[in-house]
């Protein structure tokens, strides 16, 4: 199971990296979205995927899954959501102001300043 998850995470990271290296600003943000998915799954996997009950205390369950990574991921999801929405609005404003979504055209070199 962990092996499978590690490979899935690796593929998520791979696709995220490839998207982030592209020119379109929307694709870059999609890449960051995939990257955070990969990171969240990674945290969960590293906590161990051994069986156990949902971490809601009850009398029937003998063992529970590790609650700590879940708390960490919950925090991470919310933060990455905040950042992603900010980035998206930033991209939206960039379209409005600059009229382009191509990162190569947004280069701040000496020649076009």
């Amino acid at each position, binding site marked *: *199971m*962990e*092996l*499978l*998850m*590690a*490979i*899935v995470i*690796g*593929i*998520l*990271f*791979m*696709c*995220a*990296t*490839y*998207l*982030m*290296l*592209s020119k379109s600003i*929307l*694709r870059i*943000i*999609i890449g960051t*979205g*995939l990257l955070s998915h990969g990171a969240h*799954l*990674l945290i*969960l*996997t*590293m906590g161990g995927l*051994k*069986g156990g009950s*949902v971490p809601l*205390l*009850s009398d029937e369950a003998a063992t529970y899954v590790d*609650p*700590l990574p879940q708390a960490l*991921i*919950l925090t991470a*999801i*919310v*933060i990455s*959501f*905040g950042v992603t*929405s*900010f980035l*998206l*609005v930033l991209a*939206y*404003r960039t*379209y409005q102001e600059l*009229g*382009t*979504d191509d*990162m*190569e055209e947004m*280069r701040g*070199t000496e020649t076009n300043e």
Partner: protein
Amino acid sequence: MSLLHWAVLSPFLLAIIVPILYKLFRQIHTGWFVLILPILLFTYFSRFISLTKQGDIIMESATWIPSLGIDVDFYVDGLGLLFALLITGIGSLVVLYSIFYLSKEKEKLNQFYVFLLLFMGAMLGVVLSDNLIVLYSFWEFTSLSSFLLIGYWNERERSRYGAQKSLLITVLGGLSMLGGIILLSIMGNTFSIRELIAQSGELMDHSLFVPALLLVLLGAFTKSAQFPFHIWLPDAMEAPTPVSAYLHSATMVKAGIYLVARLSPVFAESGLWFWLVSIAGLITLFWGSFSAIKQTDLKGILAFSTISQLGLIMSLLGLGAAALHYETLGENIYLAATVAAVFHLINHATFKGSLFMVAGIIDHETGTRDIRKLGGLMQLMPITFTVAVIGAFSMAGLPPFNGFLSKEMFLASMVNVLELNIFNMETWGVLFPVVAWVASVFTFIYSMIVVLKPFTGKLQLQLLEKKPHEAPIGMLISPIILASLVIVFGIFPNLLSSSIIKPAVAGIQPSLVGPDFQVHIDFWHGFQPEVWMTIGIIAFGILLYMTLPKWQKITQWIPERISLNALYDNGVRGLERSASSVMKVLMTGSIRTYLLSIFLFFILSLGFTLYWKDAFKLDTGDFAQIGIYELVLAAIIVIGSIAILFARSRLTSIIILGAVGYTISLFFVLLRAPDLALTQLVIETISVALFLLCFFHLPLMASRKEERMTFKLNNAMISIGVGVIVTLIALSAHSNKLFDSISNYYLENAYKEAGGKNVVNVILVDFRGLDTMFEICVLSIAALGIFAMIKLRLTGGKDKS
């Protein structure tokens, strides 16, 4: 803080007051206020002569940074006193001269005297400091104030060039000297020169001895304009002439000489020191005197002559080191080299100071310093001419002036080298007197050029900017005083021998100079070899001077483009160019290249660490079972994320991203994380909505076509590398678990201590509530930021077209 401390610091204090005086008393030349201080200091330091004469040393301490062993310890011994007297004495004369040289209407006198006083104080600090760090601080202060003085006429391009060049070279040396000082302090565990001298024997065998020696010498050589670092000095002649006379002949350029002399007791046992100092000195002596001949600017000749004379003193200090290898004082002929060095140091300060002032007078009264335009000034400026003759003849080494005596002693020391039987001197020693003799011939020639070209021959009035006439008396006082000193020291050299020279030699070679050591400078000492050498110099010098036009072209044999100056200029330019070309390659302004380097570094550093530490481990024993659901979900995620890469339209990519997000929340369901699944579902929905909003507002432009990503091999390889590295590290980390989770505590205490049954929520708001608070902050900031971005439309004064 003793009186001595106040004496060294007084120029700095006066420098603060000078601008006020300048503003308050505009009708009085500011120099008069400044003049008082060096005269007072000179009288103050003269009182020490009687003490140092008996071998006493005055030591005064003040704490500065005691925890680092850095205290402002000043001490006056013969060597320090000699320099202090030179600095204050010539300082007074230069200030007096500058009062008449610089016009109070046209010049920024406040700046000039502030810089000059800063320099004077710094120089006094250099020669009187016992603590090497304090010495270094003052040393850099001299570099800085010299930079300011060279660039005094900062509206001129050449001044700024000269100032920058001198700063770059002297600071290069200064910093390497700091390195040497630190090495010395590591070896001797002290910054005090006295304490280092006391343990010089043990330092010799230390492994850091040679690096320290080289670094300290680099500092001394750059400051004292030794070959090949002499190139800054001729360009420093853009400074006002009083500055050239003071800094670049009498004081600052001798800071390196002082350093070599001062640290001789520490280093001079070593053969390396002997060779480096004397060879550098001889090369500089020869090269300086040779280059002086081809100059056409009067100050240019004097600059190269200064370089050459500094080389002479340096080579004598190097030879003086040989004295340490001979025990018996009576027959120790090598000690005479040190005596000659000290004597010539004094002589050079007197005659070179006066010659610079003469050059300044000629410049001031005729408007040019070019010897091709000057001539026949003898009748018009008789006093200046007399001073010039005395100075130049002393420089050439003619009797009865003081230069003759020190030149004789110099030649004698060089001849003595032939009897030296250490350091393989038998084979190469013969070069010493030969080089010295040839350089002396050149010295004679350029000395004659200095005095004869401007003053004799035909007066070419049409070439001069002004009608020449004798300088005002105020301007002549200082050179006359210096020229009379040249004669006095020439005729009565023993005025100096026991009062000044002997204590100074004792400072350079404390182990050899005992109470029974006597310095006696003879005018005539029989038909020794040096007498014949002097006669030869004069004869050859006259012969070569007469035929100068025939052979002067030979001096141009090195073309300008491969000269040391060209090397320096190209070096500076090359450094700038290569730095900017490196920047152009690295800093493209494209985010893609920066990301590529970041990811590449990520892959290489982590991959290399994994490989090098042999860290990869795969332990499948701990793995959980794979169920069919997980397999299906994993397949959806993999297919989905790869499909994004091939999606043609962005809308498709956004929808697939949503699909991947929902699948992940299903994963959370499977992996028993209900809170995560809920949050993920909600957030994925909002994110997709936001993505669609963003997509909807894309500008409709002809250039913006929906197209697939073009395949780039580099990007693909980097991405695959990142994926593989993450997988490997994840597996390796999972297989290397070192200890159990701490979660049992939360599971046990969630209800008992916090009264909640949902352990994840209890962790979020109770056990680790602080995280949650700041996560709320993040969301608030993001919301406010988004609001501001949408609402705030500042166009920076420009109207949007």
